[in-house]
């Protein structure tokens, strides 16, 4: 009797899993894409270390801790400090926003060491973000197939190792897609809270405001701004979005007397400066090397973002346009690629274009795999282009 019941339940589960749109099946596909892509990155990284590296053995977790990861670890372990790097005057950990190290410290309370806690945090964020991106894609009208292609593109995009590294990309991606998804679903409070956390995660998190404002116009018309008291709940995300940034500024003011300590240290320590975008981009393109590579990547991403207009995703386009504007005024070209790949609406455009085109999808993923492999080698060896 029991065996018969179990058997029929099992067959029901299997039958359900055969249905393409069953949530469990979708979840399995997303997790499989995540695992497959991470295994690929680990394999490339390990092989690079063994065959091209300096031969010094290091724990596997260290493979995902390069560049800014050490800064986040420092904040996570010992909090903020005004002390500059010995060989980098003005470079302090105030350059790095507090949300990721705070979360990682919370995860570390489970008994993990700092690095493993940080990596577990970023990977959990990435997995959650993949689920949200899939649902977002369906919400804005993409087919189920296209939504899963978007997930695959995110997993295999060149530089997707940053989503598993001890830096903020996966957290930023998660909070961005959460804030946007819940705003589109009119869950204003959840969207606002995600937006507030977003602005405590990275300086450009504040740009979610562009999406929120554009969405309000698209949804309710410009009149909504003339009589905000008629629909105040729609403004909750707009008002809550800067909260994280304000709290960080308040903390900096309390601790150092300089609310804008983050801007101070990136300007003096890292040499961040702004100029007109066309002059900056011309300069990057002329410089050659990694600068030219990053500039070209960002230009390609900007061209892809035009597809958002075709999909009538105007609010998403406003977000991307604002962020490209920010990237292009910075005289520092590095990290432009990884800043672009977190703009998940771009992947929706590409996924829509690849929908029901298995050969084109396979070719795109294969190209991404090749480029991603090259960048993972560079990342493993600490080459500047991987930043």
């Amino acid at each position, binding site marked *: 009797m029991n065996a018969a019941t179990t058997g029929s339940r099992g067959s029901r589960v299997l039958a359900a899993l055969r249905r393409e749109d069953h949530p469990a099946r979708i979840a399995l596909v997303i997790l499989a894409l995540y695992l497959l892509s991470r295994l690929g990155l680990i394999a490339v990284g390990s092989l690079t270390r063994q065959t091209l590296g300096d031969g010094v053995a290091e724990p596997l977790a260290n493979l995902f801790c390069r560049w800014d990861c050490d800064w986040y670890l420092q904040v996570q372990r010992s909090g903020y400090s005004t002390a500059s790097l010995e060989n980098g005057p003005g470079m302090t950990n105030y350059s790095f926003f507090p949300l990721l190290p705070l979360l990682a410290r919370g995860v570390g309370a489970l008994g993990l060491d700092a690095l493993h806690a940080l990596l577990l945090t970023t990977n959990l964020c990435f997995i959650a973000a993949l689920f949200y991106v899939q649902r977002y894609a369906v919400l804005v009208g993409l087919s189920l197939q296209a939504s899963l292609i978007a997930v695959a593109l995110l997993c295999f995009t060149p530089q997707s190792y940053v989503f598993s590294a001890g830096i903020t990309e996966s957290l930023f991606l998660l909070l961005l897609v959460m804030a946007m998804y819940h705003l589109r679903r009119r869950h204003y409070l959840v969207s606002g809270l995600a937006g507030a956390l977003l602005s405590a995660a990275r300086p450009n998190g504040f740009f979610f405001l562009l999406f929120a404002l554009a969405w309000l116009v698209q949804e309710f018309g410009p009149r909504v701004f003339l009589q905000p*008291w*008629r629909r*105040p709940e729609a403004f909750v995300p707009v008002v809550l979005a800067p909260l994280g940034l304000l709290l960080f*500024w308040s903390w900096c003011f309390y601790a150092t*007397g*300089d609310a804008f300590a983050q801007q101070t240290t990136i300007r*003096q320590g890292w040499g961040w400066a702004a100029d007109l975008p066309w002059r900056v981009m011309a300069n990057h393109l002329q410089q050659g090397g990694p600068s030219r590579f990053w500039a070209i990547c960002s230009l390609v991403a900007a061209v892809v973002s035009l597809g958002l207009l075709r999909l009538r995703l105007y609010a998403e386009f406003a977000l991307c346009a604002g962020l490209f504007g920010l990237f292009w005024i910075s*005289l520092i070209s590095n990290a432009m690629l990884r800043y672009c790949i977190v703009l998940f609406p771009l992947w929706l455009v590409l996924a829509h274009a690849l929908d029901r085109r298995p050969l084109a999808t396979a070719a795109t993923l294969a190209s991404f795999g090749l480029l991603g492999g090259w960048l993972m080698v560079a990342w493993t060896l600490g080459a500047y282009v991987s930043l």
Partner: protein
Amino acid sequence: MSTDPAWRRYTLFALLLLLGLMYLAAVNHFRRHSRNFLDTEAQRRAEIAQWPLAPRSLPQHWVFSAGREETRLLGAGWWPAEADGTNLIHSPGHVLLPLFLLPGDLRLELSLDAYRLPPGTAISARVDGQELARWPAGTERRIADASLVVPAARVRRAPIDLELQIVGALQPLPYDPFTRPQHKRLLVLRELRISAAAAQQ
């Protein structure tokens, strides 16, 4: 329009407005009272260093290159000293002169190199907020006759805080990972000679 009762809509609107006003007040407060924390740190370090470095007699000849004690008197605005001098990374740059027993008016002679200052810019030397000299950036790398007299009557407190400020518009320079930050190599302070002004005349 929202289907919520009017009192709920107005309460929520008032709360959001209040939060928005709090943001504005906070940003205004921060803008008015924030001080560049790296400059504050550098100035504090220089103030601590001044006591053992206070000269007992004049004239003095200070060289601001790596390894020299007097580089510790450089406050806000300077990159750590290198072999050929100390770069100004943002204007103004402060130099503390711990001269506690002034013999009278002081003459300061600076050795300054302006590598990339554009035409039309100048370097202003100030003490206690008052400009005492201004040297235009010329076509030569070295700023000619970069000297000034500090009248004892103008000095209100010790140590003397000499400010060197670039006056005029600076275009942002292309990012260079090897010479960051941006304005490094615009102005280099190499040496400073301090003497009693009367002795020179």
